[in-house]
């Protein structure tokens, strides 16, 4: 029960820059999120046309998970613990636009489905075959204590072998994703301090 857990790898997407374990793998000066994420996706040469159907939050979360997990094996037992501040508000606002005017009332099912925060986790799950524990938390700032305890519980209770945790926030042009993988092997000790520094820096 008392064996320590570690963070084996992490990824970040922020300010037009993508990094894995602190090493930049893609950078552009493109200011608009939509154009940036498309460029980044093409740069990774991923064959997955469903990407283009996703909302912006899912694209962000998907790519952050993709660069982190593409070398992982046995992904079925990796649990997913995601959090952010704005839930699906970015897409909620877009969807509201389609029903705001009674004379022009055409709600889009393809937009509506993304008006739930956990869908971005579902997209990651589908891509990597993660038939595992999933949860989505919403908080003003990254809640390191809760996320730490929850991830630790999942591994210690044998409900997951590894846990992909992190922060995937997007509202309009403000975005930031930090994902990290918790498991029994790794370089940095899994503590609330470590994950706070990782996510908030």
């Amino acid at each position, binding site marked *: 029960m008392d064996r320590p857990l570690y963070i084996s790898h992490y990824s970040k997407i922020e300010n037009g820059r993508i990094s894995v374990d602190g090493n930049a793998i893609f950078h552009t000066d493109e200011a608009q999120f939509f154009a940036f994420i498309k460029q980044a996706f093409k740069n990774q040469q991923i064959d997955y046309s469903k990407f283009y159907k996703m909302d912006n939050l899912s694209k962000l979360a998907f790519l952050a998970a993709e660069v982190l997990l593409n070398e992982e094996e046995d992904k079925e037992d990796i649990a997913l613990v995601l959090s952010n501040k704005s839930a699906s508000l970015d897409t909620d606002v877009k969807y509201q636009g389609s029903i705001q005017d009674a004379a022009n009332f055409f709600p889009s*099912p393809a937009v509506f489905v993304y008006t739930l925060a956990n869908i971005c*986790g579902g997209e990651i799950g589908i891509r990597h075959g993660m*038939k595992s524990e999933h949860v989505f*938390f919403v*908080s003003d700032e990254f809640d390191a204590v809760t996320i730490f305890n929850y991830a630790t519980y999942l591994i210690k209770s044998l409900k997951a072998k590894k846990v992909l945790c992190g922060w995937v926030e997007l509202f309009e042009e403000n975005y930031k994703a930090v994902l990290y993988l918790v498991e029994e092997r790794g370089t940095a000790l899994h503590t609330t301090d470590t994950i706070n520094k990782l996510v908030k820096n």
Partner: protein
Amino acid sequence: MNCVTPLGLDLHSNWIALLEENTGIDMHTIGYFENIYTAKIKNLPTVRSDLTYLETMLYLALEPLVKLKNLDTKTGFILSTTKGNIDFLSEGKSEEAQLNKLAVKLAHLFGFITQPIVISHACVSGLLAVSVAKRLIQMGQFDEVFVLAGDKVSEFVLSGFGAFQAMSANPCKPFDLNRDGVTLGEAAGAILVTKSDENALVEIVGEGAINDANHISGPSRTGEGLYQSISSALKEAGIAASAIDFISAHGTATPYNDEMEAIAFSRLGMHKIPINSLKGYYGHTLGASGLLELIISIQSLQNNKLLPTKGFNLKGTSKDVNIVTQAMDIPLTYILKTASGFGGSNCAAILKKMNG
């Protein structure tokens, strides 16, 4: 535990109404939608002028539980909702629609010292929130957690389910041959999860929340995620599937969902265990549904009484399931509550009656 629904503004009145087999589903006009069936609360009282409609529902659900308690640094507060105060968007107020803002407002109102935790995980939110409460207590983060769940009927969600062709023109018919979609509803529920077994009604003996990893809107055709969630809960509880006395299913009355559930239960050999869905009484109350239905199921467990599945007439799934069709008095010890939702999400929790 307590709940606020179209059948009553507290648990007692809800239970009385359920025993009389009343339904909260009725014809309403909501914005663009004229004369549609929904389960909407009538005559919600104004308790404070600074609360929105949803906040009033949530307040009424939690207030009786909180008022007698001393809230300290080991007391947690979890709010579960899918869309929160989504109506603010039609006024262009996106900041006000933030889920966390709603949670912080309620936390201040009730005097919680710890930061609120918000779970927004589609239609499993309410049940998953109870799992999360249990897990965080097991990790020593809290000694007790107040779990509050709520969603209201909004034009936002109605239009979305409409666009998905997932809404029934009639009151919903869970597991029935002629089921053709959901009826949306609104409710709030509140429950206290504690470390101590003093005065406890039930013990949470096992739970799991495994994703299908199959499709973002359609349920898995094999019921894989639900099957695994229940298996995980049974394993933790250390009991066989046959030990379960009653299942409170999700039973939304869409063709795909109910079929998926029947397949999952059948794969687990649970086809003879009495099953009901409460959607015929409350409609689909989204982020509240898992918690509301858990609360009513605990009430069933306490009273050794099963409620019939309102709206069900004819067997309508490819696999046999034992749908409860009339009120039954039977001794109950273990019950299973399940939920499934968009994003491939599933959740299962097994409760054991105290001293049962």
